[in-house]
C-alpha cells in the first residue's frame, strides 16, 4: 500500500515565511482537503507536494523513501492541476489531451476518448480549443486526470468555474480513483464533499513575520 507523507515541512515564498512545521499523512485511497484563509499557503503546499517548489525545511516521503532522492519516479506518479488550464487554442480538444497522454506514456488512441467522456465533453473532441468556453476548458484540463497513470492527484481549487453537474462528475472521478487505491490532495473553497476526507487546516501552521524575525534573532 502506498503512502505519501510530509514531515515538519517549512515553506518560504521569496523571503516571506508561509507555513512551518506542517505534517500530513496521505494513505492509499485517502483524501486530504486543504483549508485555510487566503495566503495560508494552500497552493504553495500543493506545489511543494508536486516538487515544483523545494521545501525550505522538512521532508516529503513516498513509502518511507524521501521524494527528493528520486524526482523522476515522483513525477511519473502524480497529476497536478493548477489555476491555469494549459489548453492550446490552436489544437482541438482531442489533440490537446492526446499530447498530455503521450507525455505520460499512455496510448492516446485508447485513453483520450473515455477521458473526454468522463467529463461529458466527448462531443467537443474535434473542435479547436479556441471555441471552448472557460468552463469547457476547465473540464478539458480536468480530463487529464482520466488518462489513468497517476496515483497521486494534486488539485488546486478544481471546482472553480464548474457547474453543479460537473462538480458531481469530478466527485465521482475522485471516488473511483480512491477506490482503486489512488490518493488525492485538494485545496478548495467550495465544498467538494469528499467522503472520509481528512481536513488539513493550514491556518494553524501560519508563521507571522514577527515570530520568524524573533526566532532568527534568537538563532
Amino acid at each position, binding site marked *: 500500500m502506498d503512502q505519501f507523507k510530509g514531515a515538519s515541512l517549512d515553506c518560504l515564498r*521569496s*523571503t*516571506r515565511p508561509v507555513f512551518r512545521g506542517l505534517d500530513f499523512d496521505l494513505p492509499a485511497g485517502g483524501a486530504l482537503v486543504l483549508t485555510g484563509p487566503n495566503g495560508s499557503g494552500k497552493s504553495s503546499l500543493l506545489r511543494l507536494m508536486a516538487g515544483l517548489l523545494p521545501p525550505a525545511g522538512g521532508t516529503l516521503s513516498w513509502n518511507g523513501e524521501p521524494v527528493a532522492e528520486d524526482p523522476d519516479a515522483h513525477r511519473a506518479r502524480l497529476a497536478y492541476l493548477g489555476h491555469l488550464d494549459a489548453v492550446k487554442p490552436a489544437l482541438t480538444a482531442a489533440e490537446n489531451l492526446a499530447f498530455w497522454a503521450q507525455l505520460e506514456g499512455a496510448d492516446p488512441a485508447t485513453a483520450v476518448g473515455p477521458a473526454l467522456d468522463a467529463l461529458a465533453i466527448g462531443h467537443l473532441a474535434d473542435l479547436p480549443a479556441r471555441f471552448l468556453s472557460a468552463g469547457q476548458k476547465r473540464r478539458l484540463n480536468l480530463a487529464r486526470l482520466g488518462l489513468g497513470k497517476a496515483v497521486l492527484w494534486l488539485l488546486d481549487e478544481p471546482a472553480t468555474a464548474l457547474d453543479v453537474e460537473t462538480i458531481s462528475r469530478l466527485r465521482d472521478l475522485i471516488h473511483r480513483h480512491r477506490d482503486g487505491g489512488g490518493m488525492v490532495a485538494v485545496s478548495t473553497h467550495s465544498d467538494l464533499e469528499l467522503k472520509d476526507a481528512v481536513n488539513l487546516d493550514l491556518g494553524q501552521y501560519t508563521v*507571522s*513575520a*514577527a515570530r*520568524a*524575525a524573533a526566532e532568527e534573532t534568537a538563532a
Partner: protein
Amino acid sequence: MLNYFANPRRFMKLSGILTPWMAGATLILAGAGLYLGLFASPADYQQGETVRIMYVHVPAAWMALFCYTGLAISAAVGLIWKHPVADVAARASAPIGACFTFLALFTGALWGKPMWGTWWVWDARLTSMLVLFFLYLGYMALNSAFDDPQRGTKASAILAMVGFVNVPIIKFSVDWWNTLHQPASILRMDGPTIHPDMLWPLFLMIGAATTYYLWVLMLRMRRDLTEGRVRARRQIQAEEAGA
C-alpha cells in the same frame, strides 16, 4: 568555513570590524602608490609620461576580471549551497566590477590615443573587455528585472555561471578573430620588460584597488542586509496593522 560566514549576523559583526581596516588600507596603499607613480618613478623611455596611465589602467583591468570571478563564485555558492550571504555578495560585486571595467576601457582609450594614435582599436583585449562590460550590464539588468527579488537573484546567478564558462571561450574567439584581422605587432602594449621603479607603484595601486573592492563590497553587502531587515520590520508592522 562557508557555513560560518553564511550567517548574516556573523557577517555583519565581522564586516563591522573589517570595514574601517579596509578603508585605511585603501587610503594608505593608494596614497603610496600615487606618490611613487606620479613623482618618484621615471617616465618610460618610449612611452614618455603617458606610462603613468598604466598605474590606474592596469589595476582597473585586473579588478574587472577579479570582480567577475568573485561574482561568479559567490553566485555559484549561493545557488548550490543556498548561502544567503553569498547571494548578497554576488549582487554587491556587480556594480563595482562594471565600474572597473568601464574605467579600464576609458583609461585604455586615453592611453591608446597618444600611443597608437587612435582612441579605439578592435584589439583582442579591448574587445573582450567590452564584452565583459556587457556581461556585467546584463547581470545587473537581469538581477533587477523581477518583482520578486529572490527570482532576480537566482536567475542572475545562473547567468553569472553561464557567463563564467563563456568568458574564456569569448576571449579565445576574439584572440583568434583578431589575429585574422590585423597583425598584433603594432599593438604591443606590454613593450619591453617593466622597470622595477614602475613595478612598485603598480603593485601598490593593484593592492589599493583590491582593498577598495573589499571595502565597497562590504559596505554594499551591509546595506543589502540592513535593507532586508527593514523590509522584515515593515512586514511585521503590516501584519500588526491588519490584526
